């Protein structure tokens, strides 16, 4: 090492100063991820009753990760077929992208049948959102503004920002009622400048679990249409929210039927449990098939300098499941099973809170849907849950219901009652 210092000091003085330290001396430590921080603290905790309600991944009733049976079957099929490992096309596995589009749009969708769409494989939800964001930055010159609901998934903001767009917000969650601030949302959306981009969560809003009812979606569609907004749907929980894939895709399909040509990001992380395999898709509904081809060609130009072409494994598993009738049936049962367990935990949590003698209104816990629940707990109350009961969640009071089991729901209710009575 001494030799290196000598070499450094041999350089011209001004430059030696610049080079004597590292190139990275000025690089700041990035802030820790708030959600990862929760898991880190949870891991260090030695309390046997500890609960991790930060994790955004499904757990079974024993608190364990769950690999779907249809996934195992698809994997066995893949192993036996001994396929090669050649590069996928830039746009991904065709059987997968076609099945993804059909899953989202519905097999009877005019947009699907006419071929006036392009679907490319993306790196799960994040990668699909990013492709769309980059595409908008490059080709959507009418606006730089993306309107997110307040609140939204934490990663939406940096994704769009890194793509070169600006973030705005519309009212969405009402902390007083722990439900949708519909009039606030409609008021804000009706004032969004024309041709701005609006992001909507298709179902199971993250982090609040608060979704519009169908009549409310209809009004939203009408307003969005009137304001001529570009709609970008994020659908990360199709099937996982209500247990019914068609019901969960209702809003997306309704908007398209109303003549709104949407952008759509899909993830198979939760509904197929394929988290680490990064299976996802990005779709653009176009005027016609010819336009879809042009858009596709530009998406490929965007993807190639990002990672060249997507990973096969997750997409192949998803494709086999979606395209094999028996496996598809099995998947629908399993995804409903996951959704039902979550719904049941919500119900049990509320009934346990009542049993504890809580006088608060906990109806929002069962009104909300999907993996997450905005409990309404305040930061001080969350702090107490962590310190006194070893129950870990994010400061905003969000819990992952997936982390609740029949074995610990009583303890959770007890703890919540203690900090709120």
């Amino acid at each position, binding site marked *: 090492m001494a030799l290196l210092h000598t070499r450094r000091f041999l350089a011209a003085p001004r430059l030696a100063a610049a080079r004597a330290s590292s190139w990275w001396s000025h*690089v700041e430590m990035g802030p820790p991820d708030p959600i990862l921080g929760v898991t880190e603290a949870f891991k260090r905790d030695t309390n046997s009753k500890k609960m991790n309600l930060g994790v955004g991944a499904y757990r079974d009733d024993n608190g364990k990760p769950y690999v779907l049976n249809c996934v195992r079957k698809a994997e066995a099929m893949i192993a036996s077929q001994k396929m090669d490992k050649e590069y996928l096309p830039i746009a991904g596995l065709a059987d997968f992208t076609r099945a993804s589009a059909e899953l989202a749009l519905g097999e009877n969708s005019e947009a699907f049948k006419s071929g006036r769409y392009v679907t490319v494989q993306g790196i799960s939800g994040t990668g699909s959102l990013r492709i769309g964001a980059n595409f908008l930055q490059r080709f959507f010159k009418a606006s730089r503004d993306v309107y997110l609901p307040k609140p939204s998934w934490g990663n939406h903001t940096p994704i769009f920002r890194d793509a070169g767009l600006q973030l705005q917000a519309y009212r969405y969650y009402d902390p007083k009622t722990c439900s949708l601030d519909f009039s606030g949302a409609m008021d804000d959306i009706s004032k969004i400048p024309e041709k701005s981009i609006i992001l909507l969560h298709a179902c199971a809003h993250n982090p609040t679990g608060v979704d519009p009812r169908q009549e409310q979606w209809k009004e939203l569609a009408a307003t969005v249409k009137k304001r001529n907004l570009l709609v970008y749907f994020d659908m990360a929980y199709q099937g996982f929210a209500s247990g019914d894939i068609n019901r969960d895709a209702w809003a997306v399909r309704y908007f398209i039927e109303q003549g709104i040509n949407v952008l759509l990001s899909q993830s198979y992380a939760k509904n197929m449990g394929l988290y680490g395999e990064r299976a996802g898709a990005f779709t653009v509904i176009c005027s016609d098939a010819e336009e879809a081809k042009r858009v596709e060609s530009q998406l490929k130009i965007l993807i190639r300098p990002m990672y060249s072409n997507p990973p096969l494994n997750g997409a192949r598993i998803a494709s086999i499941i979606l395209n094999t009738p028996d496996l598809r049936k099995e998947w629908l049962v399993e995804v409903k099973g996951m959704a039902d367990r979550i719904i049941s935990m919500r119900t049990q949590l509320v009934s346990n809170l009542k049993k504890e003698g809580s006088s608060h209104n906990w109806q929002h816990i069962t009104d909300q849907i999907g993996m997450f629940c905005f409990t309404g707990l305040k930061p001080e109350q969350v702090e107490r849950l962590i310190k006194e009961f070893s129950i870990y969640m994010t400061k905003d009071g969000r819990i992952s219901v997936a982390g609740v089991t029949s074995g610990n729901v009583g303890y959770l209710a007890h703890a919540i009652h203690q900090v709120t009575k």
Partner: protein
Amino acid sequence: MAASIFTAVPRAPPVAVFKLTADFREDGDSRKVNLGVGAYRTDEGQPWVLPVVKKVEQMIANDSSLNHEYLPILGLPEFRANASRIALGDDSPAIKENRVGGGVQSLGGTGALRIGAEFLRRWYNGNNNTATPVYISAPSWENHNSVFVDAGFKDIRTYHYWDAAKRGLDLQGLLNDMEKAPEFSIFILHACAHNPTGTDPTPDQWKQIAAVMKRRFLFPFFDSAYQGFASGSLDKDAWAVRYFVSEGFELFCAQSFSKNFGLYNERVGNLTVVGKDADNVQRVLSQMEKIVRTTWSNPPSQGARIVATTLSSPQLFAEWKDNVKTMADRVLLMRSELRSRLESLGTPGTWNHITEQIGMFSFTGLNPKQVEYMIKEKHIYLMASGRINMCGLTTKNLDYVAKSIHEAVTKIQ
């Protein structure tokens, strides 16, 4: 139907190398040969899943304790550490001194390049300095340019590399460009088996390059897509990267396991970061996490598991090295066979460059007109630059390809 917001979106040209393969597929001529896209082929012209990969995949499939949970943002720890160790060597002082961000698991070599480029644009030579010149060899892999453009760099330049007249490295041109480059410029260096020319600097030439780069404060960003695949030896193919590390450079090395593991479609890559000390490297990694989070959140699991399992088992590691040598040896054989045929045919020009070049590719020296002849008349598909993929050659098509090159060179000027 109302006018679309996408009405004005123009049709983009297809990526050349993939278009070539598409055209090849549609060609009905039985003599056709694909010397385009860079993927290994057996002597039967088939893709080859490495035996060790098949074995490990079966192990993974049979292990019911494995699940599909998210990997950490920076990737599978066993993969990252092993991958960086492969690049830098078991006894790397940088690893011992804990100044290696080993590494950032990425989506192939492309993904590693992109994360590195995004980081450099944000944090190198100031903050968000898009004006830092980025130098790419002339010629280079065509995607290098796009990676750095899309990462936000505004000043992308080329440095002299290929001397078409003498069909070799233009070392003097390269060194001159480095002398004239603004200080702190970024240089993309091919660690071995330069794509597309197959022409690498000798160790002595690398020493000269490193000396200039050190004196001029130029940043080395290595692209290592063929380690093991070029010479058959992992260590030999990593010599340049390791030399730079031993000379005290801070550098990036984008590694791809697409070719040397044959894991093309699983997108297995690693960005190795070598810094001055552990503290600097930690801060760099923390910022790379943020970049990864908005690009793909966390990387895919399957390919990393295969590589990590293989590299961390002495027996599987030995098997893998053997598989890699098999591929490298076949390429070397095709090189010598093609050269000897061209020389026997008395094809005008010199053909020693075919065996002097290294790796998957060879810059034949054929000009665009001759290339067109090869494609249209002989149904032999190669890039307009004259680049051929040696892996596309087999004992069955060597004669036909050699004769066709002979025809192209003698008929077309």
